[in-house]
């Protein structure tokens, strides 16, 4: 029986989809069977980040409306046999999605997959509620900016009312030099305000944008800071205890991490 994890943030543009794609990839790298679900109806892009756009035939709304079988809509990743994507609809009526329908579908998926990662739309309306409906756990993504921390706080408050485990936190897009200068919120301050468990920190990296433009999640690359960060988060999801990445250290540190991970 698998586990459904919703990836949410409240605010848009903090990296939910990137995080979902990379955690999915990282978990697949660790030999877990993973299904990614994009619930951002009308503004789908998880398929683009994964480079699977051209393979879409059916989408999540077709499944909910029983126009096709669940298996038909699932797209197998081009790199892994154990990574699947259920894409969002681009044109269909978004009211077609209901919390009840999502729950049923995720319960069905849980039979076959180890992890189901749900990419949540921005906002706190129906789309968010649908995305959260079937989840067992939640990951809240924020950046070291006041506005996104504020929205993360709001989302955490809403998640606490759901019947799921206390959410975990991922701080994304950390720019080390700005944090050192005090121009960005410090990690400790963010964790203190949100007071939930920190699952991981991801440095801001140009490579992330490059990779997602190529339809290839950064987690594939063996040695960028962001890819290691995402893989560390995946290992923590599996229950391993991995120390937080030290943002200040450069090359020598990564070599150590590489050794520790035993890179292929």
């Amino acid at each position, binding site marked *: 029986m698998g586990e459904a994890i919703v990836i949410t943030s409240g605010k848009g543009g903090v990296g939910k989809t990137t995080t979902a794609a990379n955690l999915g990839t990282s978990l697949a790298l660790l030999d877990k069977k993973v299904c990614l679900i994009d619930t951002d109806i009308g503004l789908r892009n998880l398929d683009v980040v994964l480079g699977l756009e051209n393979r879409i035939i059916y989408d999540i709304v077709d499944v909910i409306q029983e126009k096709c079988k669940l298996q038909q809509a699932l797209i197998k990743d081009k790199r892994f046999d154990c990574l699947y994507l259920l894409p969002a609809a681009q044109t269909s009526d978004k009211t077609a999605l209901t919390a009840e329908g999502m729950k049923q579908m995720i319960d069905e998926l849980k039979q076959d997959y180890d992890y189901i990662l749900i990419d949540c739309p921005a906002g706190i309306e129906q789309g968010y509620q649908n995305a959260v409906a079937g989840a067992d756990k939640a990951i809240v993504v924020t950046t070291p900016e*006041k506005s996104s921390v*504020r*929205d993360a*706080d*709001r989302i*955490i*408050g*809403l998640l*606490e009312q759901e019947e799921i485990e206390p959410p975990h936190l991922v701080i994304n897009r950390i720019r080390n030099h700005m944090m050192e200068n005090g121009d960005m919120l410090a990690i400790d301050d963010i964790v203190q*305000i*949100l*007071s939930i468990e920190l699952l991981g920190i991801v440095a801001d990296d140009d490579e992330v944008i490059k990779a997602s433009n190529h339809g290839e999640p950064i987690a594939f690359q063996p040695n960028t800071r962001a890819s290691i960060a995402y893989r560390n988060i995946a290992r923590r999801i599996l229950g391993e205890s991995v120390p937080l990445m030290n943002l200040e250290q450069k090359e020598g540190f990564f070599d150590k991490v590489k050794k520790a991970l035993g890179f292929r």
Partner: protein
Amino acid sequence: MTKQFVTIKGTRDGLTLILDDTCAFEDLLGELERVLTANDIEGDEPMVTVTVKIGNRYVTQKQEDQLRETIRKQKKLVVEEITSNVILKEKALQWKEESEVRLHQKIVRSGQVLEVTGDLLLVGDVNPGGKVVASGNIFVMGNLRGIAHAGVKGNKDTIIAASLMAPSQLRIAEVISRSPDHDTEGVPMECGYIDTSKDQIVMDQLARLAKTRSIMNAFERRVSHG
């Protein structure tokens, strides 16, 4: 001679009418009217405020209105207040309700509102965008970074205290103050209350509060203020 139902006392602040609390209400009204017309005040006198003490008698709202009506018929008399030694059980329960300290243990996050009747003791933080509201005092054992509104029913004697005071706004009764526009770290162990002379909220160290002001709960306030 029969017992007198109405006693009039003159003080510096006006008249005090002491009404007997054992006779029938109609008799009392009758005599009140007679006594007041007999002591009619002359045309040029200024208005006189009247305090009415009705002892251990409970009067309904209608009866109270009748009392006021009777006194107001005398053009120069203004009823300041009618005080009684007794209240209804219902009212007493309401007072109790409003004077209790409500203990909550949680984080009030952005967009959330925690509202209580009585004093609020919050063990936890109020995050930016969060709001706590109480009819009495507010004590936050944690970081107050959001909005706190004490004395929401209009009580200006209430205070707001926090282990770390870094609010975006403080409100006491109808008085509002906001944080400065530049970023602040917040002040540990601080409290805010209304400075009655300026009618604005002032901040002070919590430790000094005992010297400048006593924290009354709603019940004590009610009893002392009637």
